[in-house]
């Protein structure tokens, strides 16, 4: 897969001759990718809006108003109101807080589990590696979304359970990526040197192997966030995720579908904001991949 805006390789520029680190080089490439930069700005704006927006509004997300049911968008209610007269603008911002937090926390969980598992498996190698990867294969073939639905439906619709579970089902690919990276560098001289002077295994992993696998890890994390957010929205849409009056973008869309023919804005505003956010995250992720791993570009 590849990205749209071609970033010119900077090998001819004098800065390269003077020696740029991998990170500076990647940063330069990222800045040249207009779509990625625009996405980052949009994301920054949305982050600020969902953080401070609800504080500035005269309404709260759970404040009902029987005299203001299903109002169309207006100066007083930018996104209109819902079936209980709650201000949709505030609910959308609160929903954004929840959706983005879910995306971030679950991605963090998957990052920690995936990197640790992949690094240990790749570094130890042999029978251990074989067994650990076989387990990943088996987990891959579980219908995870069905198991998550079962867990949420039968046990708890608690939001923290949701965080943990979404993270727990999305670490598999990360583990495979990190393992591949570790396998390809673990026999290099600098690792051997570290081993020779007696650096303990966990430090070799932490200080030498994981940092060298960081590029793909960052890229994959950026792409995990939108996919986790989608899964959360999907579960909330089915009524299994975030429960009202608290809202996530999935909850709001689900409420909107019920009133679709008469009050389409109830669906369109949260849906559009969610789409813009996911769009930006995907573009930024693609941009980061192109910047950090120029070889993955196939154009």
């Amino acid at each position, binding site marked *: 897969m*590849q990205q749209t805006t071609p970033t010119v390789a900077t090998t001819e520029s004098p800065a390269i001759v003077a020696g740029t680190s991998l990170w500076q080089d990647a940063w330069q490439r990222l800045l040249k990718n207009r779509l990625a930069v625009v996405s980052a700005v949009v994301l920054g704006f949305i982050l600020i809006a969902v953080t401070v927006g609800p504080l500035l509004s005269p309404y709260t997300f759970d404040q009902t108003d029987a005299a203001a049911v299903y109002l169309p968008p207006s100066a007083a209610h930018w996104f209109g109101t819902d079936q209980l007269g709650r201000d949709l603008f505030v609910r959308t911002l609160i929903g954004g807080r929840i959706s983005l937090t879910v995306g971030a926390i679950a991605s963090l969980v998957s990052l920690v589990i995936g990197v640790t598992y992949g690094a240990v498996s790749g570094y130890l190698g042999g029978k251990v590696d074989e067994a650990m990867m076989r387990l990943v294969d088996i987990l891959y073939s579980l219908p995870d*979304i069905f198991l998550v*639905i079962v*867990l949420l439906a*039968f046990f708890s619709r608690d939001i923290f359970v949701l965080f943990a579970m979404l993270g727990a089902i999305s670490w598999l690919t990360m583990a495979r990526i990190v393992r591949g990276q570790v396998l390809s560098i673990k026999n290099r001289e600098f690792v051997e040197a570290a081993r020779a002077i007696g650096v303990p295994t966990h430090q070799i992993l932490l200080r030498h192997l994981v940092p060298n696998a960081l590029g793909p890890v960052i890229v994959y994390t950026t792409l995990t966030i939108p996919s986790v957010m989608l899964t959360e929205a999907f579960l909330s849409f089915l009524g299994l995720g975030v429960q009202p009056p608290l809202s996530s973008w999935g909850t709001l869309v689900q409420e909107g579908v019920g009133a679709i023919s008469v009050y389409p804005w109830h669906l369109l505003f949260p849906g559009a904001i969610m*789409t813009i956010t996911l769009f930006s995250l995907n573009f930024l992720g693609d941009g980061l991949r192109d910047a950090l791993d120029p070889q993955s570009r196939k154009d």
Partner: protein
Amino acid sequence: MLRFILRRLLLAIPVLLAVLTISFFLVRLAPGGPFMEERAYPEVVRQKLEQKYGLDKPIHEQYLNYLNRVVFHLDLGPSTRYIERSVGDVIVQGLPNSMILGASAYLIALVLGMGAGILAALRQNSSVDYGAMAVAVLGVSVPNFVLGPVLVIVLSLSLYLLPPARWGDLSHLILPALTLSALYTAYIARLTRSGLVEVLRSDYIRTARAKGLREGVILVRHALKGAVLPVVSYSGPALAFLLGGTIVVERLFLIPGLGNFFIEAANARDAFIVVGVTLVVATLLILFNLLVDILYAFIDPRIAYK
């Protein structure tokens, strides 16, 4: 090859046993039960009902009974949500609808996605290319439960072209299939494009050009085969997501498919349907992944399975 298939099928047995065990205990150890929610039965009636379905026995006994029933009698048990019907009945009713929906969505995705991908690759770095790829990222970013209602607003409620919901004839299939296919169309377009761009640059394509073959022949005979590989390998994971996607689309468009039954059953704590559907889904997942791997070997002779 035969040994490879056999080995994979053997490996499927522990996976399916794991799925059965995990989902069974999840469902049965959860607080509450099929006869404790919503409808408040008198205590005696509830006990009688639990006795009838064997839910009054200790949990390990229930598990062994269920295991015995599934493995040796290929019977997935009775349904407690849909009284007087077995889980098998529910699956036989729901699965074909889900399959039709999923298959048509994937077909649409293949045609549209590969078409867009080929077009973009042939006009690389042109406005066609950028346009197609931007639309592709959009396709990945719009959740299907947003896309579906928007399509309904536009095509059904404003233009009156298609029915907004329900299930019966071909016209009912179009909107849900389109909704479900968007994500895969986008992925396939991107995969086809990057695959084809890479292949078009390889030496054997240059050789073909040097021989004086026409571009059309080069594309169809030589380039496409290489470009199709990533799409084939994506089909395995795509199916897994497709199964999740059908749940949403079935609920949106009120389609009596497996996903709809599954959610209903999960909310009604119908243990047998939940475990049964999960098992069926896992089996499908394993079979399709195996099929993809076999197909892969046929397209790319460099791959040999031991």
